[in-house]
């Protein structure tokens, strides 16, 4: 039994549904947002008491991926305190679906976006002149100011938590 067939709707009317289906389908797929440098700085340099723990990482970066559980663990440990963990990915801006899939698969719940900031020779120095450009990098911001910078990974979750704790006071 073809319910719609009996209504004698021409085929081309069905075809017109395709763009609509395409849009719905796209919304159904989780995508990581893409931020430019201004949006990034606006997000982390807020004039409030929240400590923003920003980790620059990428799905292709082995040491980065290895230390992501530490950030997840820190996020749980400081859930009752004004700490906001932000994972700023250095994956290509076309990898929005892949990054979202990666986070979902690993049950990472921290706020994540892809930071697509233009010419690295310009923006790396804007973030931190001492930074050579390798990742992972961890930065702490409070009251609109950068108060900590670390290039490289952490040996364990405790080291990261101690640093966060020390900057909370």
């Amino acid at each position, binding site marked *: 039994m073809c319910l719609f067939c009996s209504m004698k709707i021409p085929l081309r009317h069905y075809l017109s549904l395709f763009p609509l289906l395409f849009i719905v389908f796209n919304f159904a797929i989780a995508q990581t947002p893409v931020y430019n440098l201004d949006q990034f700085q606006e997000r982390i340099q807020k004039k409030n008491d929240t400590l923003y723990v920003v980790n620059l990482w990428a799905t292709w970066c082995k040491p980065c991926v290895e230390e992501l559980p530490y950030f997840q663990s820190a996020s749980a440990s400081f859930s009752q305190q004004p700490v906001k963990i932000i994972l700023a990915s250095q994956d290509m801006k076309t990898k929005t679906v892949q990054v979202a899939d990666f986070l979902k698969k690993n049950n990472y719940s921290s706020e994540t976006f892809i930071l697509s900031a233009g*010419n690295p*020779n310009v923006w790396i120095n804007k973030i931190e002149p001492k930074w050579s450009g*390798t990742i992972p990098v961890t930065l702490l911001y409070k009251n609109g100011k950068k108060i900590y910078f670390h290039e490289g990974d952490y040996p364990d979750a405790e080291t990261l938590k101690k640093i966060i704790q020390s900057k909370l006071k």
Partner: protein
Amino acid sequence: MKKLWFTLLALVVTTAIFAEEGYKPGSTATDFKLKNVDGKTISLSDYQAAKGFIVTFTCNHCPYAVAYEDRIIALDKKYADKGYPVIAINPNSVAKVPEDSYANMQDRAKSKSFPFPYLYDETQEIAKIYGAMKTPHVYVLKKEGKKLSVKYIGAIDDNYEDVSAVKEKYVEEAVDALLANKPVKTTSTKAIGCSIKWK
């Protein structure tokens, strides 16, 4: 006398610090003997006719290095005949990144038909002396008499994601300037890259 010793000590300490940081534009670069993917050992001194070199620390596994592979090939095709061949070096520890093994280097060089040597810095000594930190990381060297002078350190260009959106071709600008006997305008740049995986 005491003052002299202090000055000497300060000199030794600063030299040690600078040595650890690797080359800067203007440094004198060392030659090396490293194994190529064809099994032969290669030195910069083998290139009698060269005016200089585009020494590029790169590897197999890093998406940045992969994104730049075709551009590194294009650099060699453009500049080798003009006297600035590309010398690619993989400095990664195979224990940390199995993908960057010598056998895999051979495969990659073959499948991409690298027109340049792809050398294996197994001890990582050359990467350390040069101060390379990531892949890709380029050192443009110019022969000045018997010396190899570092003229440019950094990225190939300003956009790894989209070659059609590149505005600044740093390495090309540096080599073009050297070929025209002009000073290099931008002598060092920063880029995101995969950190070199040390032993």
